């Protein structure tokens, strides 16, 4: 299976692990990750104002690339996924926005056909759930993580806005728990798993971010978790920076470990 | 050139006549010239062997004939249907116009039919026509043999073919195709894009040629009324000939309206019009509007579907908006 793979800038710098293990695991699962040529930063945050066009063009370029290759576009970073998915939704549902974007795109060197949200946007976890299947994953596991009690941390970007992301049940998600089970470990359910870590204010108001992050890591710990797993570099940063007493790892690292491809 | 050979049809029909599955066969028969193929009923293998044709001129849609043919005896009727014909077939079944049990349908794949007018324009004094894969060879009385591209002679409805998939059959010759993405609404959109004056002039020009021969109505598989309003003195609409500048418009608007949601866009009306009026553009306008206003609907895609004209939602658009919406589409 070939998919268009959008790594995003954080995965090239501070979150190299997230990227590296995603690549190794994908290979082990027989998925070929095709990076779009000349991809640009997704912008880090989806600006919900409908008259913001320029900041969303890089996502549209990546989406058009995927559409032309007739592949789903896959990301591992929650933020990239959120931005690209929301941009795609706006292209499908907001005619004014879409026509303005297409007008911009028509100015490009090799103008593409008008884009109307045809590409399929998948998070790496969705790719595993919907295209690979957790049963297949389970069968591919070489080093089951038996006995580990792991808390899945969703944060907000993967889930919300629920209508747009359509990732899982917003209030009671299960995809990462199912993922953890497939790897042989035991998921820990705790109520703060879909609360915000305070990510975006990390720079602006570290005290507020600390409060939010600690609430998450404390809740996970109180429910008996030994480890927190996340898909988001910013969540990881916030939790670790603010003194999470539990180790925080990327889901791809766990995946690579279970598939026996962590070290090569 | 058609994928299935004429002999395959003859053999199939003869076998079904011989084993008593069917009593009669509805198929195409050669006319005076190679291009004027006509519908015919065959009752013996000999007739079939002698007269049945299957070539690029077999445009006629037999669905409507089944209403009368199935009533004639208790035996089953064998009918050959092209993909587009099966939509009409299903639509007639939806309307309970004949008994499905009395018909044996053989689906025949279709590579598109030729436009007789285009053929006639391209050659004078046609003596015979033969098909050779993507070429058509026309023997003429004056200019010898002409070889033409088959594609250049295709009928408009076949260029814009909406489906190569049979929606009904008992038996299929060859492989079934798919529903196609066609550009059949492009012409409608082009008219919508004109100014009102241009549109009026366009239709005035087209419809004023109408001679009220009723061929469009008589061939239309949706026009199967026991008594047509235009033939019924009690309807207040009866009129045998166009008597004023509006009469023919009224006839065509009402006719198109009577088949709203029922017209499968088989294109027979335009095929038979002796004045070459593009009547399908009226029906297609309704189909396009239905798709835009109420969601896509293809009459005859399945038996028993409910046409949008006899359905509603509480959120439908207002008639005054409908015209404006039409503008945006243009």
């Amino acid at each position, binding site marked *: 299976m070939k998919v268009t793979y959008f790594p995003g800038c954080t995965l090239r710098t501070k979150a190299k692990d997230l990227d590296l293990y995603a690549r190794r695991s994908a290979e082990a699962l027989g998925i070929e990750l095709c990076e779009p040529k000349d991809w640009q930063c997704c912008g880090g945050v989806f600006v919900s104002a409908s008259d913001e066009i320029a900041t969303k063009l890089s996502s549209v370029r990546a989406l058009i690339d995927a559409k032309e290759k007739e592949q789903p576009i896959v990301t591992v970073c929650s933020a990239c996924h959120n931005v690209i998915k929301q941009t795609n939704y706006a292209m499908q549902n907001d005619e004014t926005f879409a026509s303005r974007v297409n007008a911009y795109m028509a100015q490009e060197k090799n103008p593409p056909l008008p884009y109307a949200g045809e590409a399929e946007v998948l998070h790496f976890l969705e790719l595993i759930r919907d295209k690979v299947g957790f049963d297949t994953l389970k069968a591919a596991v070489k080093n089951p993580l038996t006995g580990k009690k792991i808390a899945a941390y969703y944060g907000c970007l993967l889930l919300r806005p629920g209508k747009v992301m359509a990732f899982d049940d917003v209030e*009671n998600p299960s995809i990462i728990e199912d993922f953890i089970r497939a790897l042989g470990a035991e998921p820990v359910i705790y109520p703060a798993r879909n609360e915000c870590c305070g990510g975006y204010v990390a720079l602006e108001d570290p005290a507020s971010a600390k409060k939010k992050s600690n609430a998450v890591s404390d809740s996970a710990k109180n429910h008996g978790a030994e480890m927190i797993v996340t898909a988001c570099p910013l969540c990881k940063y916030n939790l670790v920076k603010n003194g999470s007493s539990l180790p925080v790892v990327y889901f791809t690292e766990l995946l690579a470990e279970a598939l026996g491809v962590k070290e090569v | 050139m058609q994928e299935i050979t004429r002999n395959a049809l003859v053999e199939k029909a003869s076998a079904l006549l011989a084993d008593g599955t069917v009593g009669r066969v509805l198929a195409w028969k050669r006319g005076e010239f190679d291009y004027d193929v006509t519908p015919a009923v065959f009752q013996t293998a000999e007739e079939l062997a002698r007269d049945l044709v299957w070539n690029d001129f077999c445009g006629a849609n037999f669905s409507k004939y089944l209403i009368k043919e199935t009533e004639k005896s208790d035996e089953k009727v064998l009918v050959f249907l092209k993909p587009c014909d099966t939509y009409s077939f299903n639509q007639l079944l939806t309307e309970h116009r004949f008994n499905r049990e009395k018909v044996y349908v053989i689906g025949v794949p279709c590579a598109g039919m030729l436009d007789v007018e285009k053929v006639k324009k391209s050659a004078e004094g046609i003596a015979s026509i033969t098909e050779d894969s993507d070429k058509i060879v026309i023997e003429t009385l004056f200019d010898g043999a002409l070889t033409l591209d088959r594609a250049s002679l295709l009928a408009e409805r076949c260029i814009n073919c909406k489906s190569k998939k049979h929606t009904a059959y008992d038996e299929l010759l060859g492989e079934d195709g798919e529903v196609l993405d066609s550009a059949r609404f492009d012409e409608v959109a082009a008219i919508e894009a004109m100014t009102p004056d241009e549109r009026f002039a366009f239709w005035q020009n087209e419809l004023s040629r109408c001679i009220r021969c009723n061929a469009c109505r008589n061939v239309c598989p949706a026009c199967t009324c026991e008594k047509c309003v235009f033939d019924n003195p009690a309807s*207040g609409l009866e009129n045998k000939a166009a008597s004023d500048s509006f009469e023919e418009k009224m006839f065509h608007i009402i006719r198109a309206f009577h088949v709203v949601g029922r017209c499968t866009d088989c294109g027979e009306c335009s095929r038979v019009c002796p004045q070459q009026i593009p009547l399908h553009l009226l029906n297609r306008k309704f189909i396009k509007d239905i798709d835009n206003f109420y969601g896509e609907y293809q009459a005859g895609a399945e038996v028993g579907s409910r046409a949008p004209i006899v*359905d509603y939602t509480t959120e439908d658009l207002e008639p005054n908006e409908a015209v404006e919406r039409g503008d945006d589409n243009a």
Partner: protein
Amino acid sequence: MQRIGVFVCHCGTNIAGTVDVKAVAEALQYEPGVVISKEYQYMCSQAGQDLIKEAIKENNLTGIVVCSCSPRMHEATFRKTAAAAGLNPYMVEIANIREQCSWVHKDIPTGTEKAIILGKAAVAKVNLNAPLTPGESPVTKRALVIGGGIAGIQTALDIADAGFPVDIVETKPTIGGKMAQLDKTFPTLDCAACILTPKMVDVAQNDKVRIFSYSEVTDVSGFVGNFEVTIKRRARYVKEDICTGCGLCTEKCPQKKVPNEFNLGMDNRRAIYIPFAQAVPKVATIDPDYCTMLKSGKCGVCSKVCTVGAIDYQAKDEYLTEKYGAIVVATGFNPISMEKFDEFAYSQSKDVITSLELERLMNAAGPTGGTLLRPSDGEHPHTIVFVQCVGSRCASCAEKGKEYCSKICCMYTAKHAMLIRDKYPDTDVYVFYIDVRTPGKNFDEFYRRAVEEYGVHYIKGMVGKVSPEGNKLKVRASDLIDGKQLHIDADLVVLAAAIEPDKSARPLATMLTASMDTNDFFTEAHPKLRPVESPTAGVFLSGACQGPKDIPETVSQAGAAASKVIGLLCKDKLTGNPCVAHSDEWMCNGCSTCEKVCPYGAITYQDKEFRMPDRTVKVRRVASVNEAVCQGCGACTVACMSGAMNLKGFTNQQIMAEVDAICK
């Protein structure tokens, strides 16, 4: 050719002030068919009517046109006048030259000209009128009530009281409905069972009432006064007439792990069961999904212990067809699923419950014997949070809940809060509300008592999230009055779930051709003036199937529906409206298009034999209109492309004649 009389009314100066009535009468007398044309001061007066009657008799008139006020005013008057003179009342047409002419136009030439044209149109129409006679149909003097909750029970009792036989069809093994599950009722706090069960007994013992429990309606045909209904009696594997309801089987059944739906799955029952002690009919039912005997043929304990031999494992569903004159729908409501509101953690914690579940937890016959205990650990909850409007008043585009107010939640929550504070004064009770809606007799007083006397904390604001942490439920909510975000450690959270019509209502509406709104509530014939009738003649509405209702409202509507039914069943014959659709069978194609647009199901198709001109006999499928059901809207006439379907009194030809007359 008709012989038509024209009668132009002055209406004092109302018409004559702006219309030259003499000129109108004069102009119309030369219209085709007109033999006499007169004007008079007041046509509707006795003298005016006498003038018309005499003219009809003297001139052997076959039709009349009255140029006067609106037909909505005096059409009925002039029809009676015509009938009194021996003329068919449907040979009368009115030209409205007052409301639609003299009153809206200023000068006499304009008014006169228009009046003449309106008159001509009426003459043109009457030329094509035909005498019409309204049809009559008999009335089956028996009523069907669908649904055996308090609405259905009350309706059935009232109808039976008037001496008419009634059948109740109930899908559950017992009647009683939602009210049977309740503990106390507001605003009087009397026990629900104490007031409901006597009514259940009344209905069971009333010899005019038959109860078909564990049954459903599967088909309805016919029309007002003459419905034919097929009722499916599901196999309960226990002979209803033999079972004594002793309950021995339900004690001995080895299959103990069946979720008890009467207690909303909070405890278990056996595979053979009687839903509750006061069930009516009090007979056991075997649940085929759980009974090992039915599933694998091994067991048979109930049959062995039954002393009267009532068990019948071979039982099959039975169908029964009955005739009814009237049908009452009383299918009731259900709370909506809380699945899409998991910010309140309903599916994550057993201690987040719905209000109906709380009713069972507080009911002496419930899973806890009436002691309020947490479902998770059986402890007494000390802090309880009530969340109002869960799924009610949601924007329609929210796709989660319902746009409407569920109406009953404010009051039952006040009741719950009050009862809890009364029984367990050491409990803190918080109610988060958006608005407290108490428009009912003694309702607001009741709510105020909860606050003032019982010390329930009413907080204006909404709960944002409930997080199960340990054995607590952490509730995060806003307090809009104090401008605070509250964090409450609760032991129990109670959700006031929105209510929705029972799922059986939609297919039932289709069978009855009764209309529903977008929320699947049945629509009434008129929202103010005919609130208990459905627009489909002979179908009546009782209780929450028409909209959210509390018990007092349900009972009064049930009585109202019963009185409408009684009014109908008292009649021996029904007279219809003769202006109904009619199909010309020779022209009909049998295409079924008209049937699709008929809102009343008045059109059916049948295969009929026709003698053809060539003397052969042909079987043709043709439409036929049930004149007793048709209301005369005319939707079918336009759907019919051949023009076979026409509307009496408003035929295609008549309307076109009017168009022609106006456009001449």
